[in-house]
């Protein structure tokens, strides 16, 4: 089958908060905008039960925030395609080609806002138990563990928030982390006050056991040197994230941490290619900084397009 060839002013890769914000701004400037998303619209934040640090909202669910952003972007003419996966990307100053399963797109500007995904549990048994005891989305799979024993692995905000959410299902919940907790005090305190919860710090998960499903784990207490077996039904892994840069690794400058190198202006080493949101190498990665990046990338994309038109 020959793929249709289509040109767009701006193609945004990723429909997370940065990508949707860029789409909103670019759409408002009457640019012809396409957003391509291989996963879930909203990205990581779509799974957030309650967001309390996004200005203007006392509390908002990730789903509602994303839905509003999507409506805003679409109201300004941006098209979002979440069913046509990108298979190949070719980027240079003169040509920007994005091939999907069904089409071949060219674009004057590309904004990469492909975000991050959760790190996998680094144990050889992970594959055996993925979906059968090892999980990465508490909102999606938490319901499977009603009145069961749940472990949340990790010590950052995402892990503690996941643990707080999963207490509504668990009869017992362990939070296991290899060092000390880094999550906000307010979330930690909420978790510590829940009688179902036991927090094991300086503890590593060494092995997963079970026949068809996860049945127990082996844990190592770094302080005492003791190894113990813990009967558990499910583990929710929250041990950090990795940037979604696999598609671009041979196309653009990537940092040693796997993120795209671009300054606060979101400009990459290729003219007309911008990086926005968590995929960009930067110190602070928050919802607010993602929307800031999306705004910056779209406004500078428009400037770039105006200059291009002046040249031709």
């Amino acid at each position, binding site marked *: 089958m020959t793929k249709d060839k289509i040109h767009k002013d701006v193609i945004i890769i990723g429909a997370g908060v940065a990508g949707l914000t860029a789409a909103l701004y670019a759409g408002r400037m009457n640019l012809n905008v396409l957003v391509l998303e291989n996963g*879930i619209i*909203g990205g990581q934040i*779509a*799974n957030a039960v309650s967001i309390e640090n996004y200005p203007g909202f006392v509390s908002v669910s990730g*789903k509602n925030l994303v839905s509003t952003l999507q409506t805003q972007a679409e109201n300004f003419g941006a098209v979002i395609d*979440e*069913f046509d*996966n990108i298979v190949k990307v070719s980027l240079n100053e003169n040509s920007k080609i994005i091939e999907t399963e069904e089409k071949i797109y060219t674009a004057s500007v590309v904004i990469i806002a492909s975000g991050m995904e959760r790190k996998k549990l680094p144990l050889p048994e992970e594959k055996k138990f993925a*979906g*059968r005891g090892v999980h990465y*989305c508490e*909102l*999606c*799979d938490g*319901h*499977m563990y009603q009145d069961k024993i749940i472990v949340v692995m990790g010590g950052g905000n995402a892990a503690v928030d996941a643990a707080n959410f999963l207490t509504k299902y668990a009869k017992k919940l362990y939070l296991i982390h290899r060092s000390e907790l880094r999550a906000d005090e307010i979330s930690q305190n909420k978790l510590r006050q829940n009688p179902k919860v036991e927090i094991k710090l300086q503890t590593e998960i060494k092995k997963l056991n079970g026949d068809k499903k996860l049945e127990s784990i082996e844990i190592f207490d770094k302080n005492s040197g003791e190894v113990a077996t813990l009967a558990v039904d499910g583990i929710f892994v929250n041990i950090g994230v990795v940037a979604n840069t696999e598609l671009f690794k041979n196309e653009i400058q990537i940092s040693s941490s796997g993120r795209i190198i671009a300054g606060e202006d979101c400009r990459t080493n290729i003219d007309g290619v911008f990086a926005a949101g968590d995929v960009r190498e930067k110190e602070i990665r928050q919802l607010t900084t993602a929307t800031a990046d999306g705004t910056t990338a779209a406004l500078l994309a428009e400037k770039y397009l105006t200059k291009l038109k002046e040249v031709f």
Partner: protein
Amino acid sequence: MVKVYSFEGCPWCDKVKKYLKSKNVEYETRDIELDDTARDECEKISGDTSVPVTTIDGKNYVLGFDKAKLDELIAM
């Protein structure tokens, strides 16, 4: 009739439903959180209550969002 075993707030379930809609495929939503019968049916079909589970005959099913497999199922 295509049935989608799912629950409110499950993002991949929503994606499956949006995909079926985009293909003009009618489907019935079976909510495994609100309906114990739906939960039992889901477990019987896939051996688990991990969702979304999409089925057309209660035997052949697709777990999660897999466009190629959903296309095959729709074509049955």
